[in-house]
């Protein structure tokens, strides 16, 4: 069996065993913590598709976390608590917005692309703040958790945990298939050498746009999950800080690798938790740590475990 597959199986086994273990040890806090990591991993995996594999430095990816979360929240606000309706809307709305933003942004490149994606996300953030009905700046409480006709109860922390785990693994699998398909090859080629890709007969734009939409949709699902996890939805989910966090989760783990975003999310969240326990002003330590990691630690964690995908 390939060593990479073996590592994955071990990791999954550990994650599956965590809830019963945590309960037995009386440390149920960890179920919550790891569940948060799993949900954010889903977001990081989606960003890795366009950033790691596609080379699109999208500084506005948190927008879709917000759109997904607000889709769930707003529907619940108006009495529609069915997850069967909410979550597809979360995914669909995110995909649509990604299509709109991507169509304009992907025509640009380099510094422009970074600034434009950031600007559009900020626009959505301000939109979120200005919607006073939904709490404006303070955000709003989730009226009721998403209902799935009794199939799964999201207020059961363990059941929710396993759902998050399952969805994350599904995302890993889907991303793996996509990046190694014909579509994925063109996306990666366009990142590796844009001029050569055009010379060979591919116009990168439709491929990048499609990847952008897929990534947005996947992140929207993460947003829907996150709303249920925190029971509270704020515009801060769409802030540039959140976008930056997502990017670090991708980078720290190692870009353009399947395990990278998951490792990176675990690493960043664990570091944050450690620092938070140490001082109230943990960001004053985190900031320089992140700077140093960029300067010295280019390959990321996944780079320590195996060679890059080719």
């Amino acid at each position, binding site marked *: 069996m390939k060593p990479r597959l073996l590592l994955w199986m071990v990791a999954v086994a550990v994650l599956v065993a965590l809830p019963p273990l945590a309960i037995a040890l009386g440390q149920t806090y960890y179920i919550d913590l790891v569940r948060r990591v799993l949900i954010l991993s889903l977001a990081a995996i989606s960003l890795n598709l366009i950033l790691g594999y596609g080379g699109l430095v999208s500084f506005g990816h948190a927008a879709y976390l917000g759109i997904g979360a607000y889709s769930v929240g707003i529907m619940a606000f108006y009495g529609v608590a069915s997850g069967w309706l909410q979550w597809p809307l979360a995914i669909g709305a995110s995909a649509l917005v990604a299509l709109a933003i991507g169509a*304009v942004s992907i025509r640009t490149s380099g*510094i422009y692309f970074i600034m434009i994606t*950031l*600007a559009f996300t900020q626009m959505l953030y301000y939109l979120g703040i200005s919607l006073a009905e939904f709490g404006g700046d303070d955000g709003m409480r989730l009226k009721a958790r998403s209902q799935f006709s009794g199939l799964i109860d999201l207020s059961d922390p363990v059941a929710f945990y396993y759902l998050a785990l399952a969805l994350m693994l599904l995302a890993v699998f889907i991303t793996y298939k996509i990046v190694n398909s014909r579509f994925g090859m063109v996306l990666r080629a366009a990142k590796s050498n844009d001029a050569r890709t055009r010379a060979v007969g591919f116009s990168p734009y439709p491929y990048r746009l499609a990847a952008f939409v897929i990534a947005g949709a996947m992140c929207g699902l993460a947003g829907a999950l996150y709303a249920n996890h925190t029971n509270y939805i704020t515009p801060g989910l769409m802030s540039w800080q959140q976008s930056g966090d997502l990017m670090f989760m991708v980078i720290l783990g190692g870009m353009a690798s399947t395990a990278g975003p998951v490792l990176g999310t675990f690493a960043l969240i664990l570091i944050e938790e450690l620092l938070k326990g140490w001082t109230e002003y943990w*960001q004053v330590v985190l900031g*320089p740590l*992140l700077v140093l990691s960029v*300067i010295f630690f280019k390959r990321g964690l996944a780079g320590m475990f195996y060679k890059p995908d080719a």
Partner: protein
Amino acid sequence: MTWGLVFEQLLNGLQYGVMLFLMAAGLTLVLGIMNMVNLAHGSLYMVGAYLAVALTGWTGNYFAGVALALLGTLLVGMAIEVVTLRTLYNRDHLDQVLATFGLILFFNELVSMIWGRGAQYASLPGWLQGHIDLFTGSRYPVYRVAILVVGLLVAILLWYVVTRTRLGMLVRAGASNRTMVGALGVNIKLLYTVVFGVGAALAGLAGLMAGPIYAVQPGMGELILIQVFVVIVIGGIGSVRGALVGAIVVGVVDTLGRAFLKPLLASVISPPAAEAAGPALASMLIYLLMALVLAVKPAGLFANR
């Protein structure tokens, strides 16, 4: 909605545009010449504001406070350049974004540690506190007029330096072709340092002028920074002229939009709907404008390359 009110808001828009210009001018040159994304530019704005508050209080003199704040911001800027940014000049944009993002976290938290997370009160000396009478009959704060004047002076000064001096020629050349300038034997490192320093000073100036009007609090830099990005995208990277035009346009559109979109909408659609849609739409205006400009001119209005 009287003409007097419109004119007043127009002045406010120009004043805001001037502040955006001070930030944008430095940033667009750094982007154009050094091909470097520096998110920490907003932190310099914040540092300027905080230093002005602290040093004015400490020295008891407005001018001393302002001068020292400018100097302090310049020093902080230099420190950032030497310690962090130098290693990033040859890295790709992603690395630059991430590293300067880390700097933002650091500075926001550092400022919180020293001054707390709440807003600081920035005071004005007596002679800047009054109002003047506009020809429209309404009264307008002296301080805002002062900002307009300062901004105009800086714009003229920059125009003079960029178009009429040798340094300016190097800056313009560097903005359109960096390698060429290096090949001509110019001391690139020194040029970079000067450009960055000027940018830092301008950001600090914008920050200390902003203090008395807007809130001095952690994170203030990033709020304006993103609008500065919009300015630069509209104006074109590397172009100071573009930064001026873009800044005025963004400043005026944003201010007028926030002031008048809701009442304008209310006259067309129902007031309750306008109540909800007005502020939402107003906050989105400049971004929609940016998208429109990009659709027509993908590299901005005055793109250099």
